């Protein structure tokens, strides 16, 4: 068995290099085809009829007029009479027609009568929430009463972080064709090419072997695109009903923002206490959150500083008549980070202590003190903390107030199950195939780098093929598990294939197969590098044979093999300027220090962190799903009032990758989630530092900032 361990950091030729994404030009020039770009001959377009009511019972549904609408090929009722609708946007019927316009016009002709029931859609006020809350019971650790009495300083506050949506630029949907021979061709926008086949097989009662899934690119998922979803199932049925014509459905923007996925909220009344020297001794929290009708959302607080000795915690899941939550880039972590780092910064202000010092002082309360201390110092250095930070409220006189704030995060990120197949052709061509997907993070590129490194080739010598169920199974891209999984499986498959090649060329090189190695496009004898064959010449020795070998990442073995692992910390410091007359917050800088194990491609790693920081800026300052108490609907299901930052709203982002020999030895660790955690807390703390008081709820829109400054409740 080959030695799978990564080559030493100093000996790597391709891994660790800053390669641009292999599909970068294709994507930035618009040539990349997403599933939503697909148009097949004879294709029908499907649209959903959804409920305008947040809570209602369907009394009757009549699709006869829609069925007669010109161009309509198939109609299905999803919510028959008697169905209890639990949120506005609930799928009621679906229509396939020759054009999207015909489908939309027909949808308007579906007559649905509802018995409207009472709804509940806003959870920020605990008093109003009570009857809809399910308390999870109180947890007590140590002696919080005593700790409260003995604390030199106690800080109390209300904090809130709202529901926001995934807002994928490529909305959810698919093109599907279910032909009369019971075969299904499925082109989804998904984070899980391999597993979505099994899910669809179950939903359609079609053998998985009859289903082929293909996707080249996905335009955003963030945790919301794992399942075929109701529209995937129903559009498949429409295709069957229409005699096997392909059917395309992609949610319109409004529907995407309402039912395409949300991040649960997090609200809490929090009390923290400390000794004069900053030693944190007390945590009390009464928290609540909603993730839709099923409640959901339980932020793990206190976060990072988990070992605060005396704790009293209670949490309630609030059921609202809103569409259910989905995993959102580090589920529950932004909420937990905000609900912890904001109260700790308020405590620091009350202690008249530098918050970075407070966190350093209490690093022992975390699972990785050394990492956090190192990162806090690095982030402080990069943000010019010692020069720019000032005690809270000490930001000078004018209308523009500058402030700095800090947040800390953590994540797992070990590799998922993944199998790769490496094929070496007699002409020297190399293919790597995985049923994986590239969420835009550079997965294709790092696979090519790993294969090239392992085979002694260049990135351009390797052809990476992903996004298809004809390739070996690879895991779901969730939980920051992809890079660990696919890099390890690619490594193993490459070396397994190479082992077979060595056998074929051993004779020509006059050395035993186990004495051969590869470097710089040659197969050579380890002890006698002068004896070598160029890669192409070596492969020609295969004659008519083709080598095709697989390799798998098995999570339970991964740590032992040293290829990938999980568990990281990260620290971010935000630098903002707040116009206290208008409430407008501008980002000056966001510094992200991230520990992440072995870095295969520093450029794509940095890009990941840039993206995560931008999401945090949006979440801290702009993004919020706004529901209407009267109609129960989402008011800002558009990109006009569901606000996202533009390039000028982002400021400078400074990324520091914690690349060290020590981190490298841990193997590959996922990076999707970790840097998306601390930013919101850091920005909120920076605003508090700038204006001298806490804006208790994010996003810190001008409304919330001015309300906080005026002492008004938002």
């Amino acid at each position: 068995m080959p030695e799978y361990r990564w080559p030493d950091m100093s000996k790597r030729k391709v891994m660790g290099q800053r390669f641009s994404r292999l599909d970068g030009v294709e994507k930035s020039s618009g040539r990349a085809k997403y599933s939503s770009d697909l148009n097949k001959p004879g294709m029908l377009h499907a649209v959903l009829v959804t409920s305008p009511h947040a809570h209602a019972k369907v009394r009757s549904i009549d699709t006869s007029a829609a069925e007669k609408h010109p161009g309509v090929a198939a109609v299905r009722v999803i919510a028959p009479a008697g169905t209890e609708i639990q949120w506005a946007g609930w799928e009621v019927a679906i229509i396939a027609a020759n054009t999207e316009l015909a489908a939309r016009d027909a949808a308007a002709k579906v007559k649905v009568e509802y018995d409207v029931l009472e709804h509940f859609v806003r959870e920020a006020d605990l008093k109003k929430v009570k009857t809809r809350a399910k308390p999870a019971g109180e947890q007590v650790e140590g002696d919080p009463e005593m700790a409260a009495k003995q604390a030199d300083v106690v800080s109390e506050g209300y904090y809130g972080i709202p529901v926001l949506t995934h807002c994928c630029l490529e909305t959810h949907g698919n093109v599907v064709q279910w032909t009369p021979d019971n075969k299904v061709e499925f082109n989804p926008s998904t984070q899980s090419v391999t597993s979505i086949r099994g899910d669809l097989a179950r939903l359609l009662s079609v053998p998985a072997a009859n289903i082929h899934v293909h996707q080249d690119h996905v335009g955003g998922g963030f945790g919301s695109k794992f399942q075929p979803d109701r529209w995937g199932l129903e559009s498949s049925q429409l295709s069957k009903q229409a005699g096997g014509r392909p059917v395309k459905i992609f949610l319109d923007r409004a529907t995407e923002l309402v039912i395409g996925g949300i991040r649960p909220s997090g609200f809490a009344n929090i009390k923290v206490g400390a000794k004069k020297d900053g030693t944190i001794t007390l945590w009390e929290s009464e928290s609540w959150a909603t993730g839709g009708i099923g409640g959901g959302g339980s932020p793990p607080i206190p976060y990072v500083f988990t070992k605060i000795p005396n704790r009293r915690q209670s949490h309630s899941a609030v059921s609202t008549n809103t569409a259910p939550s989905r995993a959102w880039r580090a589920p529950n972590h932004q909420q937990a980070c905000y609900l912890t780092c904001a109260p700790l910064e308020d405590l620091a202000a009350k202690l008249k202590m530098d918050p970075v010092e407070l966190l350093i002082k209490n690093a022992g309360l975390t699972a990785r003190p050394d990492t956090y201390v190192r990162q806090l110092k690095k982030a402080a250095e990069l943000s010019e903390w010692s020069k720019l930070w000032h005690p809270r409220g000490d930001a000078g006189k004018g209308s523009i107030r500058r402030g700095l704030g800090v947040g800390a995060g953590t994540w797992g990120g070990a590799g998922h199950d993944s199998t790769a197949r490496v094929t070496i052709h007699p002409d020297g061509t190399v293919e790597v195939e995985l049923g994986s997907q590239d969420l835009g993070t550079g997965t294709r590129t790092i696979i090519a780098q790993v294969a090239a490194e392992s085979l002694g080739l260049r990135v351009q010598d390797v052809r990476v093929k992903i996004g298809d169920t004809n390739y070996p199974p690879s895991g779901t891209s969730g939980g920051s598990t992809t890079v660990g999984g696919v890099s390890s499986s690619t490594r193993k498959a490459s070396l397994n294939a190479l082992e077979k090649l060595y056998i074929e060329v051993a004779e020509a090189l006059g050395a035993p197969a186990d004495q051969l190695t590869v470097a710089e496009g040659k197969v050579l004898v380890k002890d006698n590098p002068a004896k070598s064959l160029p890669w192409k010449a070596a492969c020609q020795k295969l004659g008519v044979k083709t080598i095709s070998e697989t390799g798998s990442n098995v999570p339970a073995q991964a740590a032992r093999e040293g290829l990938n692992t999980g568990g990281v910390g990260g620290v971010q410091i935000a630098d903002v300027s707040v116009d206290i007359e208008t409430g407008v917050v501008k980002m000056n800088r966001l510094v992200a220090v991230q520990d992440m194990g072995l870095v295969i491609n520093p450029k794509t790693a940095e890009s990941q962190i840039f993206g995560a920081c931008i999401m945090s800026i949006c979440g801290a300052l702009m993004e919020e799903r706004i529901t209407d108490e009267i109609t129960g609907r989402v008011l800002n299901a558009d990109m006009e009032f569901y606000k996202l930052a533009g390039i000028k709203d982002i400021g400078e982002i400074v990324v520091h990758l914690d690349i060290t020999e020590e981190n490298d030895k841990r193997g590959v660790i996922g990076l999707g989630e970790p840097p998306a955690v601390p930013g919101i807390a850091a920005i909120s703390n920076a605003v508090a530092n700038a204006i001298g008081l806490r804006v208790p709820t994010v996003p810190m829109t001008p409304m919330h900032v001015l309300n906080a400054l005026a002492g008004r409740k938002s």
Partner: protein
Amino acid sequence: MQPFEYASPKTLKEALALLGAGWGDAAVLAGGTDLLSLMKDNVMAPKRLVNVKEIPELKGITKTGAGVRIGAAVTVDELASNALIRASFPALLAAAQGISSMQMRNMGTVGGDLCQRPRCWYFRAGFGLLPTHEGKNLVAEGDSRYHAILGAGPAHFVSASSFGPALIALGAKVKIASAKGTREVEAAKFFVAPQNSETREVALQPNEILTEIVVPVSAAKNATYEIRQKDALDWPLATASVSLTMKGTAVGSARIVLGHVGPTPFDADGAAKWLAGKTITVETAEAAGKAAVESAKPLKDNAYKVQMAAVAVKRALLAAAGVKA
């Protein structure tokens, strides 16, 4: 979307003949940045679209005896790059620059900006200009964070026009044509707060086209200050346009017009009168800002906009007078 007929007349006369007696008969299409989304959302469903971008009478920016004439189909970008505008009307220039999307500036027109429909989220969801649901006033009892703080009601949406406040402050007039002839309306009277759900928010009839805007040229110092959350394309939360006719170093007469705070641009006449005879300083500008919002009656969620509007006035005055804060 309701099927519609598309016409692209080459003369104003032809265009006017294509309009109807009711709003549902025809709609004037200029940049389409608003109309098309209204149609897609089924808020408007005209039977005919009359494209006015091919009509020479609606184009160009020229100097006339009465001032600078701006064709209604002039794009925002053409306005912002025009030397006459840049020389005399910083208030208009700033308003144009506030539309911070190149695509919008390239497609959107000055006339379209004045005629665009409100962005009220209840209106856009099909609940009308005076939205109610099951007997409840949606704006007053629902979410009013982006709604009006000024105006006598019953309309609570805010006028979305970027140029309206500046044109009013500059004393502009708009020309309106119908098959029967043309009429001229003061910019201030072009915007109307609807008293019932049947009326529109501008003084146009279904059979009329806004053809041009005439801005008198004077020595008045003018400026617009816009408060937006984002630097990227975003609706202002409050704006103020001011025009100051100076008498020596003091203000002879002033006009102060607020935007995005009421169903029409709000002419803060009292504040303007108060300013007469005073020198613009941080203090007087701030006092004028406060005076401008004296009659504000914020709704449940938008008290924050009162201060914002006052600040916009203060900053616009300081900008016009060239005083540093």
